């Protein structure tokens, strides 16, 4: 069992858990993920590692309520435990001195991008970060991302805070500004990553995305997470999760993310009626 040391509600539907997991904390690197399972009847789901503390032997995960598992996870708090916490899995994000890097984070992925931006900054890169959310009440970690970035641009879809619009708009402006951009790292909902990749493609700037398909074991054993990158089938759990966004077959990714929509709906409704909890 893995004990929850701390729980924070970052925004209404996005939560942070700090978990006691010495082995994972010791090895975690930016861009890697864990697979978790709440209990005996639970499913295995992948969650990106947001941070870690090697002194305290703890790992932080940030997740959004989507299906049964994440809803159930959101009800746990400090002192509770989860059955399984496996990692760190996947390849770390490739970090070196590129020059100027734009880090784009959509929604809850700001938690994923912070350790990446920090590592890039420590390597001597100029880091320009863009973070976006639907509305002001869904924004979090602005200061955290700001503190590891040379420049931070915040957008909200509805204009309730900072700049109105979506993240691809400032991204495009930066690319057009004439400043030499050496790399873009875009993490967030798949549709956002696709449009970031489409935005950078005409400029020929290498764009890394972190894919989030359905997984089971997370160790290369099942092939559930297969995607097509540059026409070649890859397993996201062992070959990724980072890939060249210009090479990803996005339509295939979207289709495969929808495989269990019916079952996910059934499972969530069943849990809601049994638990009496309706968000």
């Amino acid at each position: 069992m893995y004990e929850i040391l701390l729980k924070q509600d970052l925004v209404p539907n996005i939560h942070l858990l700090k978990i006691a997991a010495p082995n994972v904390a010791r090895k975690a690197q930016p861009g890697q993920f864990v697979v978790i399972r709440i209990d005996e009847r639970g499913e295995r789901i992948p969650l990106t590692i947001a941070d870690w503390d090697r002194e305290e032997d703890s790992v932080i995960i940030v997740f959004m309520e989507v299906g049964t598992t994440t809803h159930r996870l959101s009800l746990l708090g400090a002192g509770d435990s989860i059955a399984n916490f496996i990692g760190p899995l996947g390849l770390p994000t490739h970090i070196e001195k590129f020059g100027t890097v734009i880090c784009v984070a959509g929604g809850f992925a700001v938690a994923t991008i912070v350790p990446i931006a920090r590592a890039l900054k420590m390597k001597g890169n100029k880091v320009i970060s863009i973070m976006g959310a639907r509305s002001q009440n869904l924004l979090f970690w602005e200061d955290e991302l700001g503190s590891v970035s040379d420049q931070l641009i915040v957008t909200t879809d509805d204009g309730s805070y900072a700049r109105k619009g979506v993240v691809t708009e400032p991204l495009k402006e930066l690319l057009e500004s004439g400043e030499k951009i050496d790399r873009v790292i875009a993490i967030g909902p798949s549709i956002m990553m696709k449009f970031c990749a489409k935005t950078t493609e005409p400029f020929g700037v290498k764009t890394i995305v972190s894919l989030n398909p359905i997984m089971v074991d997370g160790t290369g054993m099942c092939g559930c997470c297969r995607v097509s990158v540059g026409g070649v089938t890859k397993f996201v759990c062992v070959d990724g999760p980072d890939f060249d966004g210009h090479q990803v077959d996005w339509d295939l990714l979207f289709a495969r993310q929808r495989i269990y929509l019916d079952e996910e709906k059934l499972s969530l409704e069943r849990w809601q009626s049994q638990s009496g909890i309706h968000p």
Partner: protein
Amino acid sequence: MAKLDLNRVSMPRQAPGLRARNFNEVALGYSLEQAQAEASRCIQCPRHPCIDGCPVEIDIPGFIKAIRDGDMPEAVRILKDKNSLPGICGRVCPQETQCEATCVLAKKEAPIAIGRLERYVADWERANMPSLNSPVIKATPTGKRVAVVGSGPAGLTAAADLAKLGHSVTIFEALHVAGGVLMYGIPEFRLPKAIVQAEVDYVASLGVKIELDTVVGKTMSVDDLLNSGYQAVFLGPGAGAPMFLSIPGENLNGIYSANEFLTRVNLMKAYRFPEYDTPVKIGQRVGVVGGGNVAMDAARCALRLGAEEVYIIYRRSEVEMPARREEVENAREEGIQFKLLTNPKRFIGNDQNWVVGVECYEMELGEPDASGRRRPIAIPGSEFIIKVDMAVAALGTRPNPIIPSTTDGLETSRWGTIIADEVIGKTTKTAVWAGGDIVTGAATVISAMGAGKRAAASIDEYLRR
């Protein structure tokens, strides 16, 4: 001399129509009377060729004699002296090509049903000696520590043998339960998970520690293990990475690797969704590509989940099928349809990216290939479409690269298998042994157990030097 009794005692099984819709065990096991009748057929020949046919060298005539004499605790003791996993082996070993093939009565086509007797003894022990776990005389603790990577057949066997020799053993398992392919791969109806768990518990009762959720190569490296006080490491991670056909349409929704399909059903218990959280698609018309035991397992799972039509699509003919005869017969009895000499050309999808069919070639057999089997050749212009709404690729597995790619000094072949001594399993890296599918490529449970056993003996010798 008494006349040879050539009437093999058959084992009761669930009726095909009934078992095709449930996940309960197909074969029901012998009664005491049946076991003793079968044991009495053994002529106790002095040359005991059956032992030579057993990769773990069980004293087969010995335990059979004990059954005949009604001394079941003695049968348990003899069996477990060499085999820590008898309930598993009695069910999934291909005895027909091993101990039973070398039995002197095999010449009369009536070899002793050694596998069924082994199963009987294991089941008797579980029912009658639960707390005893058969007494094992443990050697004096050596103070040496061994790390075993993987808790499948190779790892469990190596760990049990090393513990019996007095070493302190820890198994590191990537998944959330121990047992490897015995848990995630082989279905409940062929190998009940309670039996695997009981035999894992037996290994633990020998003093073996089991660390779950530990992906060696990720959570910690082999060198981390060697640097943290383990004097030797045995690698038995299996050949866990699934192979696909590399034909168009393979990533359509509804197409699974056998590993994924079986893992969802067996390990994650998707057949009990939504009571368990992990879902699996229920196909109405399911095509399983492949002709091995795993293909039979996947086909029979799909049927039990509620499929109307299930096809085995295999490019050679039935003679070349690598699956056990028994499993092919079981599948056929249950209503699985065999599309032999048939090979997929491409999968066809609808506009929602769901598979709706598989276009296949008719095949014919040419000259024997490297495997000794006649090579299948596509007949030009023979393409036809099988309508399916789900497909499973059961084409075998290749080694997962996680450990080799993170371990300096561990040499691999061009197929990605770890290079190790054929007999003792010693790798090119100091203090590291390997065995099972990671060395041989996909093979059987018992061959992996044999490798684990031989490696354990070699590790013991190394540690005592």
